[in-house]
């Protein structure tokens, strides 16, 4: 009987992550926030108890990192209009008041923590910049229009 290669195990862990966790989260923005939250702030390594129990912890970490990078590049490649749509999905699925989330996101820019390690500087900047714009657009849409 042949032993599966590292690449095969990693792919299995990745598929497991998509099937059990990420598919249950609505929208790529919520997915990237979730994946970034599995990363240790001090060490930069990813942890997921369930995935590590089914596979090894290093395999789980690699699968989480791969998924994080993939979703990051998918969001960064979105047009501004698509990103506004993604942000809408995120706000609608959030349990907090929409205007509060918009306000906090504009003030604290928590999405900066969602950047994967060692990404291209221009792409990282595009991601942050587009989110800033998407927030401003939704903020403007939320404001009541004043009749002349």
């Amino acid at each position, binding site marked *: 009987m042949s032993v599966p290669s590292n690449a095969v195990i990693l792919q299995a862990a990745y598929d497991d992550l998509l099937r059990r966790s990420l598919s249950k989260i609505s929208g790529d923005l919520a997915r990237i926030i979730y994946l970034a939250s599995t990363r240790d702030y001090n060490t930069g390594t990813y942890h997921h108890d369930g995935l590590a129990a089914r596979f090894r912890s290093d395999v789980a970490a690699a699968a989480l990192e791969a998924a994080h990078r993939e979703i990051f590049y998918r969001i960064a490649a979105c*047009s501004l*209009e698509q990103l506004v749509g993604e942000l809408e999905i995120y706000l609608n699925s959030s349990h907090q008041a929409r205007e509060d989330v918009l306000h906090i996101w504009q003030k604290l820019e928590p999405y900066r923590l969602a950047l994967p390690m060692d990404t291209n500087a*221009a792409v990282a*900047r*595009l991601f942050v*910049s587009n989110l*800033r*714009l998407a927030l401003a*657009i939704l903020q*403007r849409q939320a404001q009541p229009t004043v009749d002349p």
Partner: protein
Amino acid sequence: MIAISSLIVGAVLLLVLLAIAVRGWLAARDSADLLGSDDEVGKEGCPSEFVGRIFSPVDWRYVHEMKSPDIEKLFRKERRTVALVWVRQVSFAIRRIMREHAAIARQSSNLRAATELKIFVQFTALMVTCGAIRVGIDLAGPMRIGGLARYAHSLAQQVARAEQTFELAMQQRARPVQ
């Protein structure tokens, strides 16, 4: 009379060029703090699809349709910053490639003049293009100079490939004959 008016036109043109040069220099200085070091720039190249996205007019059309001067202003500011980061990244990367090339070339005893000239011409064209993009970003905005950015991106890839080929050739020549 004609001589005086020519002189005035010349002086005005000179001032305009000077203003453009100063703006370009200030823009380059502004984007300097957005990137850390040469190392940070070189970790991962900017994929082609993102070059298209940074300089795409699609987002601008979307923002323009909103008819909000504030959003338009924010968009111009944000996209200009991203575009300048990208230009700086290309300039850094290409200068690093040339430094590495010069270091290898100094140790080599059998350089090919045609290859060296080709690399030098590509390098010069790229640096001039990066300068033109910087000015273009300031004068017209990133969304109107997408073609120039794509040209610079493909030229940078050509220079990187030529340098890889050169390095491989030098390594093969340096190997002892068995």
